[in-house]
């Protein structure tokens, strides 16, 4: 300990600024190396984590799908879901928009012609706990399964029975309407892009 303080007092001369500059440069180099190491070791894993979050849901969103490939259709990023023979089983469409308190990020499963919704998954939401965040529950999301994409979905309160009706989560009408709005917009845009690309 005392040796340290002696060396430092000896260095407190005219050449001190060089010592200081060297110290910062050496530290910056060392830290840079450490960061480069961390980056090359972990970034593939982080990227895989992000992708895996979507890919893990694909079989639940599109019946019969076993894997998915990322691509863009008419500028819209989308995942093409493939069945075990490599044929197109459907599409998984990422969609996001403003919810009640923050952005909601969704994955929408569609059949091969994008004519019907085959599933819905909530990737990220910060809605009110106990009310709005129940949009993540399986029971509520299941309502979307099998709905036709030809007509925009509408939210109802109380009993929903109609073909294009979704029953709102009790006490969270806005969150429910946000989800339905996000799904409607994303699906409409994607259908147009799919038609234009001729598939």
């Amino acid at each position, binding site marked *: 300990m005392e040796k340290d303080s002696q060396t430092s007092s000896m260095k407190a001369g005219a050449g001190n600024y060089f010592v200081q500059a060297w110290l910062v440069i050496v530290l910056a180099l060392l830290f840079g190396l450490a*960061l480069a190491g961390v*980056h090359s070791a972990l970034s593939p894993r982080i990227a895989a984590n992000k992708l895996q979050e979507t890919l893990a849901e694909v079989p639940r969103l599109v019946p019969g799908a076993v894997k998915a490939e990322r691509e863009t259709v008419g*500028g819209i990023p989308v995942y093409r879901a493939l069945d075990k023979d490599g044929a197109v089983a459907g599409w998984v469409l990422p969609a996001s928009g403003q919810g*009640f308190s923050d952005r909601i990020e969704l994955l929408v499963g569609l059949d091969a012609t994008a004519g019907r919704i085959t599933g819905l998954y909530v990737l990220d939401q910060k809605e*009110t706990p106990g009310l709005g965040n129940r949009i993540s529950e399986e029971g509520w999301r299941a309502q979307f399964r099998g709905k036709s994409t030809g007509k925009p979905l509408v939210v109802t309160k109380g009993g929903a029975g109609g073909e294009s009706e979704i029953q709102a989560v009790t006490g969270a009408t*806005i969150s429910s*309407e946000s989800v339905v709005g996000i799904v409607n917009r994303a699906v409409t845009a994607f259908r147009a892009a799919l038609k234009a690309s001729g598939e």
Partner: protein
Amino acid sequence: MDYAVSLLLIAVGAALINNFVLHYFVGLCPFLGVSRRLDTAFGMGSAVTFVISIAAFLSWTLTYFILRPGAPLTTLIAGRPLDLSILNYILYIFVIASSVQFVEMYVRKFFPHLYRAFGVYLPLITTNCAILFACLEIMKHVSGVDDPSKVWGLGQSLVLAFFAGIGFTVAISLMAGIREDLDLCDVPAALRGAGITFIVAGIMALGFMGFTGVDRGLEKALRKDGHSRAPRREAVVHQQTGTGALGGEGAAGGRS
């Protein structure tokens, strides 16, 4: 028109709905430390607004052109897309520290009057988490966004930062106003100082929760294609919960 609406929504969101202090809890140190008197609180708020806008400009430029994966400048130099995002945090903190230094020198030289108003607060701002938080919010919307049409431009970033600063000024000024009156109240000894300030802040946060959903109403009113959304008061349900009854006091306290 759509662009103007999106800017307005970002502004309302940053200043009121997701107020940096009362919703994200950043910038609490000055919120506690410099909120004893109204004039100093306002000076601090102005200084933060000033610095946060400059830091937002610099960090957007850095992120957009250099740091984000596949940024134009690094692609041009290296000949292939690079990902420098691991350097984000280090560069942001240096951008903030140097812009604070620079602003201090500039304001002292050219605007001595302004310097007298908030110059003393400038050095404190370097470690104000609100500034770094604004940079990180901008990063979230620029770096690693899948859909190119959703990447934020300079306009959105500046509006977010400036109105976040305004929101901070509003919150700290309200708090200073309340604390000036609080000096005359008989607060239990144990709660004096920080304790009562946090409780007042909690009640203010309750009041500010009432703004939730305002952006959706605005969006619906301004965008004619409104996607069948109706603004409704979801927050009302919170009053069934234990502390919900305090909401009324929060609104009253906010006005005093």
